């Protein structure tokens, strides 16, 4: 195996690609006047639902109105102030046991206005990140003060490199693999509700 490593690296060195300078860390001039409004629009564009509420109590009330919340039997909640879960993630040793989850309520770290994506890491999910993908419906709770304009601003606040998993989620799972017809709910969540609090 060591020999293939050397072979590949040696071949690449022999290719003698001429030096080209590394550009500065890229930035964008894009700035939105009303960040929450633009974020909400972007969430809608990626087939998600965005609810804006002043506080956690109102978030809880708004979610109780949703049919996906009303009909959910198995709920995993990492935002107990908003919805109480029926399944304690800490008690789930094997991610396969999450298969029956109807609704997952998870805090998002921040949102990106240009595309409606929400960043979260397994710091909150621990080893059970599978719940994000296994659940039938997903609710992400994001503080309205934690919005950035573009992906450049997103990476400026991320400090990647430590062991762990992090991801952007933009809307529900979707596919257009059959005649380009957009279908929501391919493998992951059939709906994504982003609750913008504050």
């Amino acid at each position: 195996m060591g020999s293939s490593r050397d072979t590949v690296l040696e071949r690449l060195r022999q290719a003698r690609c001429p030096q080209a300078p590394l550009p500065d860390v890229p930035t964008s001039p894009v700035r939105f006047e009303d960040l929450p409004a633009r974020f909400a629009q972007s969430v809608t564009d990626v087939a998600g639902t965005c609810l804006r509420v002043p506080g956690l109590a109102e978030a809880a009330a708004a979610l109780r109105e949703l049919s996906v919340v009303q009909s959910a039997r198995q709920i995993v909640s990492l935002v107990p102030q908003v919805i109480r879960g029926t399944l304690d993630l800490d008690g789930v040793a094997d991610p396969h046991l999450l298969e029956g989850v109807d609704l997952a309520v998870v805090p998002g770290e921040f949102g990106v206005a240009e595309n409606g994506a929400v960043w979260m890491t397994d710091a909150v999910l621990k080893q059970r990140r599978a719940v994000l993908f296994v659940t039938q419906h997903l609710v992400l709770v994001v503080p309205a003060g934690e919005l950035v304009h573009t992906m450049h601003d997103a990476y400026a606040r991320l400090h990647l490199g430590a062991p762990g998993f992090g991801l952007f989620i933009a809307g529900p799972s979707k596919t257009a693999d059959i005649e380009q017809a957009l279908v929501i709910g391919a493998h992951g969540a059939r709906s994504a509700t982003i609750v913008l609090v504050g």
Partner: protein
Amino acid sequence: MNAHARAAERLVRDDARLHWHDAAVWNVRAKRDRAAQAVPDWEALRDAASRIKLHTLSRLPEYLEEFERKALALGARVHWAADAAEHNAIVLGLLRERGVTRLVKSKSMLTEECHLNPELEKAGIEVVDTDLGERIVQLAHEPPSHIVLPAVHMKREEIGDLFHRTIGTPAGLSDPKQLTEAARQHLRAKFMASQAGLTGVNFAVAETGGFVVCTNEGNADLGVSLPPIHIACMGVEKLVPRAADLAVFLRLLARSGTGQPITTYTSHFHGPRPGGELHIVLVDNGRSTLLASETHRRALCCIRCGACMNTCPVYRRSGGHSYGTTVPGPIGSVLSPAADMERNAALPFASSLCGSCSDVCPVRIDLHSQLLAWRRELDVRGLTPAAKRRGAAVASFVLRRPWMYRLAGKMVRFFGRLLPAGVLRALSGGWGREREVPPLPARSFREEWRGKRGV
């Protein structure tokens, strides 16, 4: 007719289907335009992407070593493969050692390029492609016809029939919603039963040792968050130097590919899950040869968005399968001759050189110039058809002698007006097969021009 044109016959002969395919693919190009136009700094992004990639290529060995060092420190294991056979052997070895017989895969053009699936299946491993489009073509025993939309060549009714035969859906289904739901149920069971997950890699970051996988369906994430083993296969050109560079590529990728502002899931993996294993397989398989080519190394900047396919008038009207390669369309026609010049000699000619591919490419690969360059290289190596070479030799001889060119023009106009249309069509070679020869003018442009200016 060259090999690509012959292979395109099947689609071309079915006029209604040809236009359906053309419109379906063009629709994706239109979505890309709307998304790109909504980003004011789009052209600056393309510049940045191109410069970041060209810089990375210029220091690829160093960045690969940095990536490996960081990935190992995160607890991943890193494997190196010089070619497809070695890549397949590494993956098979990993699965065998761990007694894995059920593998779920998300989309990876690299494993298609290496023909991994048949190798694993021969060894008794069940391999399930989980991207819906990929699963459809896998069940149909066909290769993907597009790198982003693997089943873009199939109609909903055909997919309904296929699902009826293979996964037991009721006969006659054709609603994409119902078909997708059926696939969801079928594949959810496969996810739950899998013992290992394999993904491709969209971008790997040298400074962190992590990598990013983008999907819309969530299949990559489901595939690697349930079983304890994650194998990620990547070509050595997938690196970017800094995490901050991801912003550029993620803003470009989905907008260029499907017109979305970002894919639904953009997952960043840094090391294995606690208690799990992460294996990263770094693959050369001809990439170092391409890097050594002054003309073609830019093709290694490709981020596999598929925009050049969607815009290409030849791809849209010939279909992905006509190329006979893993990556079809303009970028495929640049990459494939580098891998096997003789086998893929027809592909650089499957282009009108209109340049639309270069215009939409998010990393500014000069695709149409590269196709032209390939034609020259193939000609020098004697790999262009004899008739084309003879024709070019005659044209070169005549065009260098103005008197002979004028005489030839006169003869064509004279006989052209006497001969019946059918004979002219036959004489015009492949050109006249689908077209009428226009009526020939009595006088040449030159003669008209002289008359007008009164010279």
